[in-house]
């Protein structure tokens, strides 16, 4: 009894003040606040962020520091994220979490592929992992140059010899013109990788997965689904037999093979019906 009481209590909603807001791109802001529990999160975990009287949304944890500081990168896409973007430093938000599993921390030759705000958990992972890798290639995609996220922080980690940062923009305003998956085919043909980590639009991740399967490389992908309870109970977030909030959000290639008919193809709507992605 004691343990479960702790378990529920540990995840209780608490409110905290926004301590810092940075504009990362025209559509993405980074919010920083203090939360002891989420500050212990591992790369890949997410939190539920409550915008009081508006909504509660899942967000990947971008930074979790020993001093208790936690950051999230939020892209303005609808009502909740717009309301969040209007918040000022000092205003109250609510937090539950951290939830879900995390990326394994593999050494060796690593390939990371991210798109959009999916870069957040991959950056968090890269910062924790960089010193342990034999080789680290980071491929990031965005619509246009100014939507490439965290470039400065990435350049800092990926400055060394055994590292490489490849950017792709759909309009060609920076780096390779095209999708993030474009440079991958060649990379995987040329080099051997021990692990691919990916997060971003699901169709992108599906392509990365197909390529990884083709080249026989291990892969972990972080998925998004509709989150309500975030504690594995309500069933809103299911993909196949998995609950993304509890069994994920990070899934291995082996698990993704099981849900091939849904991964990158369909998801469940607010009413639970399957709809095309």
């Amino acid at each position, binding site marked *: 009894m004691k343990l479960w009481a702790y378990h529920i209590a540990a995840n209780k909603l608490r409110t905290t003040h926004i301590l810092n807001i940075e504009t990362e791109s025209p559509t993405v802001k980074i919010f920083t606040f203090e939360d002891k529990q989420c500050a212990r999160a591992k790369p890949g975990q997410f939190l539920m962020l409550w915008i009081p009287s508006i909504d509660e*949304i899942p967000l990947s944890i971008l930074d979790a520091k020993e001093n208790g500081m936690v950051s999230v990168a939020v892209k303005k896409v609808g009502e909740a994220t717009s309301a969040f973007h209007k918040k000022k430093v000092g205003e109250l938000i609510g937090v539950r979490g951290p939830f879900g599993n995390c990326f394994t921390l593999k050494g060796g030759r690593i390939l990371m592929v991210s798109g959009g705000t999916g870069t957040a958990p991959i950056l968090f992972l890269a910062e924790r992992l960089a010193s342990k890798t034999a080789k680290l290639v980071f491929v990031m995609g965005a619509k246009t140059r100014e939507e490439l996220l965290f470039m400065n922080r990435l350049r800092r980690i990926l400055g060394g010899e055994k590292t490489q940062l490849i950017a792709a923009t759909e309009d060609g305003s920076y780096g390779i013109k095209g999708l993030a998956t474009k440079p991958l085919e060649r990379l995987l043909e040329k080099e051997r990788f021990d692990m691919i980590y990916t997060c971003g639009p699901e169709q992108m991740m599906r392509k990365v997965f197909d390529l990884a399967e083709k080249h026989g490389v291990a892969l972990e992908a972080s998925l998004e689904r509709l989150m309500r309870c975030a504690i594995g109970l*309500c069933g*809103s977030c299911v993909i*196949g037999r998995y609950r993304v909030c509890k069994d994920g959000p990070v899934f291995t290639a082996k698990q993704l093979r099981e849900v091939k008919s849904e991964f990158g193809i369909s998801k469940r709507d607010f009413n639970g019906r399957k709809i095309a992605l």
Partner: protein
Amino acid sequence: MRLGNPTMLASGILGLSAESLGNIVMAGAGAIVTKSVGLKPRNGYANPTIVQTSYGLINAMGLPNPGITEFVKEIHEAKSFGVPVIVSVYGFSAEEYATVAKKAVDAGADAVELNVSCPHVEETGSEIGQNPKILAEVVRKVKASVEKPVFVKLSPNVTNIAEIAEAAAKAGADALTAINTVKAMAIDTETTVPILSNKKGGLSGPAIKPVAVRCVYEIYERVKVPIIGCGGITNWRDAVEFLLAGATAVQIGTAIALKGPNVFKKIKRGINAYLRRKGFKSVNEIVGLSHCS
């Protein structure tokens, strides 16, 4: 309807997709109850739809479901798991309950459970489950339209649950599920606002177990139809407590968040070990046993 063991998944827990129902069967459940399904699709409420309290959860999902027409394929698929599939049904009128129930049974449901006790959606749920007359009409209409067992899921948010139970039984209910969640709410002190987008919701989990046990005990004193106990069960002792109070089977919901889906297996084994240790031959021997004292 025969159960391999007396544990069932409670409605609304992972019950929207056949595959996750399959997972619960693998985890040991003797039967599965689907999410409550209505005639038309419903998106449910905006988040927050759940509040984690120290001793339970308050939820106000708002009955999200794809509607029975869409849901039929999940029922079909769920049938393949080899345990009884009970489809939970709600409606905004007796006719709607009957229509949805019929479609569910036509799709293969082994039984329907009428959700007349949702504490947070207006005009269905509690309004029906709190009024013996309206409830009786709903039960009669559903009974007239399906040939499978009809369960009625009762609300604890009533003055006299035994009276409501009796009305449902007299109208033909084949079993009674007790209880749905207890109406509750949580307000955040820092922002001074109610947390749930719907403000009020239903409390589930360990906090409500003593209330649920009392409800089962009171119903058992009054009516003869089988009772399915539900509310805050997290281990075999809790399950046995419900059986002793008068339940013939139990449903488990919130415990899945607390202990994972394998809670079914553990509870099933715990009940069996208890029966063996105490020299009982079957669950039936302990149903209602606490009333003998």
